[in-house]
């Protein structure tokens, strides 16, 4: 045990010696979680709408007033003619154009219906469909009012209840994802360089010639980074709860346990990269840049996994962050009991064990 402890000591010295890196390691997650926690959002607010209203009657004004009153929209422009509709998208900041049909009120009563065109800038499909949905909701509300006034057929009244996140805060959705991303990448980047640096600087030869077992070398490399990661985890959680106001609704203890398993998985992945590549450059680029892409795109952090094609859904099961993010959402925001995250925890454990096992197996005890 004594050589092992000495070895861990050596690794700590490596880290503490480089004050700048340590500062970066500890401060980076703080800034990132704050920045992304506040800034990442899918909410629609104050979208700018332009209106083309040739009839200008009581009904079109009522619809416009409802749009003006809504928090989603601000009416910015009244268009004079139809041709301006195209230009308004190209030059203005308009997101949606409402086009009322000619003789709106007359049609409404003589024909029984009148048309409202909703023309959205479809470049961003998500935003466009959200806008038209909200607009349809506002017009639907006015339709209900008309129905009550002018004799109504039967109605179904929906009673809507939003669970866990009644105010619809984006932070509730994005914070678990950002936690997964930051922990995964920082942990993998830290360890990926650990073994490869010894190879590059030549000190690996000394390590291999020493009586320390390969298992101990690998474990000693993980211990200091594990400690640092726990510090990071604590600051991230504190910031989420006290600054971003994302509550820990479930058990803090289990949230911690799952996070530790996830950190271990990420460290193990870093170690594996470290044993596979030969240069620090390759290690850093694979753990920082190459790993970043699937962790952002396939983990469900931003994009819904259920909407992906089957192959990618399958591929996403290989991403550790996917399982962690699901578990954090359940434990932290939904506040469910731990038996609901057994599957995610088991998968993370299996991944950690597998990665550690493979990197131990790949660890070469002979120099080329």
């Amino acid at each position, binding site marked *: 045990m004594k050589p092992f402890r000495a070895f861990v000591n050596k690794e700590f010295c490596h880290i503490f010696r480089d004050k700048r890196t340590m500062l970066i390691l500890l401060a980076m997650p703080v800034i990132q979680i704050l920045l992304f926690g506040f800034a990442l959002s899918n909410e629609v607010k104050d979208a700018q709408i332009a209106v083309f209203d040739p009839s200008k009657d009581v009904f079109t004004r009522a619809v416009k007033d409802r749009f003006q009153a809504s928090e989603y929209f601000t009416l910015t422009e009244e268009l004079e003619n139809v041709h301006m509709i195209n230009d308004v998208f190209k030059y203005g900041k308009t997101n949606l154009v409402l086009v009322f049909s000619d003789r709106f009120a007359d049609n409404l009563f003589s024909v029984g219906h009148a048309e409202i065109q909703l023309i959205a800038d*479809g470049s961003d499909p998500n935003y466009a469909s959200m806008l038209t949905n909200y607009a349809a909701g506002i017009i*639907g509300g006015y339709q209900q009012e008309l129905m009550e006034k002018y004799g109504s057929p*039967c109605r179904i*009244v*929906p009673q809507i209840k939003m669970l866990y996140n009644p105010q619809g805060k984006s932070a509730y959705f994005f914070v678990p994802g950002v936690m997964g991303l930051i922990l995964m990448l920082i942990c993998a980047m830290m360890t990926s360089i650990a073994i490869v640096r010894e190879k590059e600087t030549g000190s690996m030869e000394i390590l291999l010639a020493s009586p320390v077992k390969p298992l101990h070398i690998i474990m000693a490399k993980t211990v200091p980074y594990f400690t640092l990661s726990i510090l990071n985890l604590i600051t991230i959680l504190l910031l989420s709860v006290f600054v971003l106001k994302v509550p820990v609704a479930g058990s803090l203890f289990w949230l911690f346990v799952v996070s530790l398993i996830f950190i271990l998985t990420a460290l193990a992945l870093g170690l594996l990269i470290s044993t596979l590549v030969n240069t620090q450059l390759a290690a850093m680029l694979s753990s920082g840049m190459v790993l970043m*892409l699937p962790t952002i795109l396939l983990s469900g952090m931003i994009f819904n996994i259920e909407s992906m094609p089957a192959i990618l859904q399958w591929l996403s099961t290989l991403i550790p962050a996917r399982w962690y993010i699901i578990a954090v959402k359940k434990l932290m925001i939904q506040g469910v009991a731990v038996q609901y995250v057994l599957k995610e925890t088991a998968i993370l454990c299996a991944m950690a064990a597998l990665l550690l096992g493979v990197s131990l197996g790949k660890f070469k005890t002979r120099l080329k």
Partner: protein
Amino acid sequence: MLRFLIEKEFKQLFKNSFLPKLILILPLMVMLVFPWAVNQEIKNVELSVIDHDCSTASKQLIRKIVSSDYFILSNVSANNDQALGSIESGQSDIIIEIEPDFERNLVNRGSAEVMITANAVNGTKANLGTSYLTSILNDFALSWSSQHRGCTVATGNPPVLQLIPQYKFNPHLDYKVYMIPALMVLLLSLLCGFLPALNIVSEKEAGTIEQINVSPVRKETFVLAKLIPYWTVGFVVLLISIGLSAWLYKLFPVGSVFTILLFSSVFVLGVSGLGLIISNYSNTLQQAMFVMFFFILILIFLSGLFTPVSSMPLWAQTLAGINPLKYFMQVMRLIFLQGSKLGQMLPQGGALCLFAIVLNVWAVLSYRKSS
């Protein structure tokens, strides 16, 4: 002098066992896999249904909901606890509870209630899901009343507002069209940002920087020799990805390819400059990597690539104003989707030029030949 230095950089680049592979494989991976993943469409919302009524009307309603594209029936629960359990375990996203006297209320009173309970952790999904459901309920109510005239409380047809949604520039709301230009921006920023960031610092670690420092090479020449290879890499990567997107996704820019190349050459100079600055200030590869990673992640997330800039709080929008990625992203999407001309994108072009100049002057100044 410059020519020899550039030759050296290219030799070093190709001699490396990892970098040439990375430069070819990363665009392939990004263009083949990710356009399918970056899709914020809400479909396959899983429903848990509690039907306390079990009447013809309630069954018709459920059938109507399930037959829409958006919803999948995940389970039929007997009571609220069971349905809540299915939300907690992640099997379903939304619970619909139909009241016991649904049909009778519909016939006698002309109005009935449906409880919709959504898991709002994913706010977008919950909002869109409930609003789809509400519009299905409205449709159902209308068609029910036309079939069963008896339930109409008052007579006469109420006026109907008809909605015709229409989408400009991307009529089928295809996500790939919107995201592929953005993925190209991502790719360029990663490769042309990270590689220069690690370049000068690896010369420091290897010790070869000493030789440059004692040589008569001027600082500007040195920085320029570092920039030009990444500039070339940027062009290669961009052409590969434009080619792939045309071949695989039949996506051709509406505007001109020349304008794309013009803007990207300025943009690449900017990010590479940022990378070189970081490389100059770092002592070890690890430091350079962490700092670059820190900045790149912020640049990506505050650029409007994944979430719209207009949804961000005001201070973040201001911060996004000093983000070159934001401008380049706008330019790429404008050219690819709307076919904007050079003259319409002068503000973005100006901003990108400014970034390129400031960052590279800084890169030259921050490189010190004596320690």
